[in-house]
């Protein structure tokens, strides 16, 4: 499938002038809503993760009438809860030379110069308030004996700016946001709708005015109207079927908003995390991430000889290839995520992988145990070792761990301007669901920072500027009935096909296809192949899917089928985007664009832009709108970790 060129995006609403004061000036310029008028304004917030939970709580606190939705049985279960590592903030508590500007600089560079300077600078500015806010809420961050907050260096950063709560940082931050939300629910400013899935966006008179949802318990389809809609529904990594995302994570909310006119930016930017537990069999439902910190002491290797199936402890030292240390002598095992992942794929493709299917590399702690002693290793990584042993039944103290990369985060998402507005007026997108801050690659411990920055500080500060024009008056019956009947039709169709394949089997097939052809490495040939096969798989889906039961009950097969249907459309756009971007950058690696050493070769002359795609119909060529990126504070350089 090809695409058409559209007009470039003219205005990102980012203030001009000095970078350091843009956010301050924007906040001052934003109109305010009189406190007495706020309760007359309704805001729908879909998703209750770090971004959605914090946004709903803060908007409720400001006095808006907030409707909060999540598909989980409680807002507390959103997948932000599974983040392990930590959250970055430019507090410079370690006194090691960190600053807002340095965090800004690192994030732009880490994103491989594919993000917007204004947004990233704002993120770095706001980061410090996040820590203050969370501590005030009672988030139990790790502390030193003196009682002050502890920080660590994460993902190869040269400063200690990562705040953490053991390996459960995401959980503790999310519970903080959830509790703030619970307080507002109790106060009556937020109405919570758990086990409710958004299935369409209501657009009336050019404005986003509500959502069509399905009550997952009763199956009732209903419309909730509002003056603004905020999507905080996370990423779409589950398009690959196997990922570190939760089983329920899906693209439905943002994809259906995209189909209603919101542009989708950079869909091909996906982050692959190098240290996950490898796939064990066909029935695998989920990949488990092992904290990146393991690479601080573990050594990655594979046998020199392809097809060497001796147990690892019987392979002598000179027949092992510590390939990261060999290829990247200065960073060794600590190279960034994308590089470590790709190197693992390369050795496995060469037939030197270990474990079932040859899809794994060793992460060996024998040296660390010898050097530090078993007790020290246990103190640092004990809980991770235990988790590994529980899943694989192998003891990492005795035999090396096996790891393999897995899809972890999607940098792409709905396009938003500086005010987090999507291209449909009244539609705001925050957190992983938008594309805004991470460019082509996200730094470790930055996802939590962005989610909370958007939810606590950015959205509440700018949404008033839009709502100051409201309330927006009655919504025409047509817009509501059109959206509702589209959803009803979809449900009816899915239930009536009565084919011979489960939704899960289509998801598995799509995921494998995407992983092979649009995963860690993309090639023109592979992407063409994917673009050839996805439409036929989609066609087969609508002919052969079998969804049992009815629409008027708790029907998990129906939920799944609807989500897979959307993945089947999104996958195509991802491949189109990946095919059109013939450079390699961050999480997007094109085999055609690499250096002689096999490193990514970025093409700033042709691709220093955000690719924002417009939907024109299923299977129809999308329209590409460029947002050109201008770098004033940072000069794009080549990332090198040799």
């Amino acid at each position, binding site marked *: 499938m090809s695409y058409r060129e559209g007009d470039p995006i003219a205005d990102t609403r980012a203030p001009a002038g000095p970078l350091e004061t843009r956010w301050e000036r924007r906040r001052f310029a934003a109109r305010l809503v009189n406190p007495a008028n706020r*309760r007359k304004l309704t805001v729908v917030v879909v998703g209750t993760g770090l971004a959605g939970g914090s946004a709903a709580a803060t908007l409720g606190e400001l006095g808006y009438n907030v*409707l909060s939705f999540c598909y989980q049985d409680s807002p507390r279960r959103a997948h932000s809860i599974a983040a392990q590592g930590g959250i970055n903030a430019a507090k410079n508590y370690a006194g090691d030379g960190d600053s807002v500007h340095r965090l800004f600089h690192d994030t732009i560079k880490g994103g491989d110069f594919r993000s917007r300077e204004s947004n990233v600078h704002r993120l770095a500015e706001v980061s410090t308030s996040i820590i203050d806010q969370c501590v005030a809420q009672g988030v139990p961050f790790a502390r030193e004996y003196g009682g002050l907050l502890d920080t660590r260096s994460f993902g190869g950063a040269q400063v200690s700016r990562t705040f953490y709560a053991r390996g459960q940082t995401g959980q503790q931050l999310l519970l903080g946001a959830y509790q703030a939300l619970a307080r507002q629910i109790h106060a*009556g400013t937020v109405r919570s709708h758990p086990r409710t899935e958004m299935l369409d966006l209501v657009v009336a008179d050019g404005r986003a005015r509500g959502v069509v949802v399905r009550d997952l318990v009763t199956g009732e389809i209903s*419309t909730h*109207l509002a003056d603004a809609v905020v999507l905080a529904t996370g990423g779409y990594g589950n398009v690959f079927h196997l990922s570190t995302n939760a089983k329920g994570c899906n693209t439905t909310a943002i994809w259906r908003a995209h189909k209603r006119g919101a542009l989708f930016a950079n869909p091909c930017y996906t982050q692959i995390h190098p240290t996950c537990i490898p796939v064990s069999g066909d029935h695998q439902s989920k990949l488990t991430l092992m904290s990146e910190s393991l690479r601080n002491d573990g050594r990655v290797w594979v046998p020199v000889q392809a097809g060497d199936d001796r147990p690892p402890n019987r392979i002598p030292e000179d027949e092992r290839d510590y390939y990261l240390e060999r290829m990247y002598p200065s960073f060794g095992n600590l190279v960034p995520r994308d590089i470590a992942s790709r190197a693992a794929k390369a050795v496995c493709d060469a037939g030197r992988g270990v474990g079932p299917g040859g899809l794994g590399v060793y992460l060996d702690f024998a040296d660390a145990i010898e050097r530090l002693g078993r007790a020290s290793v246990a103190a640092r990584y004990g809980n991770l070792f235990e988790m590994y042993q529980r899943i694989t039944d192998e003891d990492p103290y005795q035999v090396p761990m096996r790891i393999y990369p897995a899809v972890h985060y999607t940098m792409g998402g709905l396009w938003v301007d500086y005010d987090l507005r999507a291209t449909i007026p009244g539609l705001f997108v925050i957190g992983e669901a938008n594309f805004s801050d991470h460019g082509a690659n996200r730094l470790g411990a930055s996802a939590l920072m962005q989610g909370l920055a958007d939810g606590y500080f950015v959205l509440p500060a700018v949404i008033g500027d839009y709502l100051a024009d*409201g309330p927006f*008056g*009655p919504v025409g019956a047509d817009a*509501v009935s059109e959206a509702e009947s589209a959803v009803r039709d979809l449900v009816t169709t899915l239930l009536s096909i009565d084919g011979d394949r489960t939704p899960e089997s289509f998801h598995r097939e799509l995921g494998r296809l995407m992983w092979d052809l649009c995963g860690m490495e993309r090639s023109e040939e592979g992407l063409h192949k994917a673009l050839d096969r996805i439409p036929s798989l989609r066609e087969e889906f609508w002919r052969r899917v079998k969804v049992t039961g009815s629409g008027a009950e708790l029907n998990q097969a129906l939920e799944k089928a609807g989500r897979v249907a959307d993945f089947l459309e999104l996958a195509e756009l991802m491949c189109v985007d990946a095919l059109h971007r013939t450079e390699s950058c961050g999480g997007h690696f094109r085999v055609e664009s690499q250096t002689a050493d096999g490193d990514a070769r970025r093409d700033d002359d042709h691709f220093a832009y955000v690719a924002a795609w417009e939907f024109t119909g299923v299977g129809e060529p999308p329209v590409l709108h460029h947002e050109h990126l201008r770098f004033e504070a940072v000069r794009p350089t080549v990332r090198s970790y040799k």
Partner: protein
Amino acid sequence: MYWTTRPRRSYRGRMAVTSPAPVRPEKPVAQGFPRRLWASTVGKKAVMAVTGAILFGYLLAHMIGNLTIFFGDIDGYGVFLRRLLAPVLGYGGLVWVIRAVLVLAVVLHMTAAIQLARRSARARPVGYAKRPRAQGGYAARTMRWGGVIIALFVGYHLLDLTAGVLNPHGVDGQIHANVVADFRHWYVVAAYTLAVVALGFHLRHGLWSGLRSLGRAPSRSAAAALVVALVITIGFLSVPYAVLFGIVR
């Protein structure tokens, strides 16, 4: 603004949601400490802990009193108790005061226990088809049945050695003779043993959990509770067995 324009039937449920939800009224705090205490399950457990502690204190004194059968004149001990504070309360007055306190403690202890047990039954109307041996301790699971056994026993015990109605000898004030008349029979000793062992279990968990019900979780309290429960059990059983084996005549 939150509304919908179509007066369709299926919308009616949502039409109600046109204005922000009313702020939930905070429940007023109950007036007076006893009411506030009795209002919650935690308070009721605290009442059980305090009344349990009173009953435990009585048991301790009772046991020490019993042991006078080995070292002295138990009938004299009975007289001594009745003469205590006699100038103020009259002869035997203190005993009646103690009895009143005990009755109040038992009533509160049992009322709270029954209310909590009924609440538990309501909280799990449908049980599990398969439920193996519980994970927690044996003593913890026998509190309710143990309590019932103890209550039945106390009734018998009062009729036996206080009122003397069920005692083979049954003469008021002749404590020693009454006790010996009782425990010459193996079945009386068996009944007492059953009850005292149940009491031991009850105390072991009761002492430990009572501390927690009152908000204290001292270290090694489980071991301490076990030792105290054993001392009480052995102390109480020593008299019947001493009679049965002819050590006390």
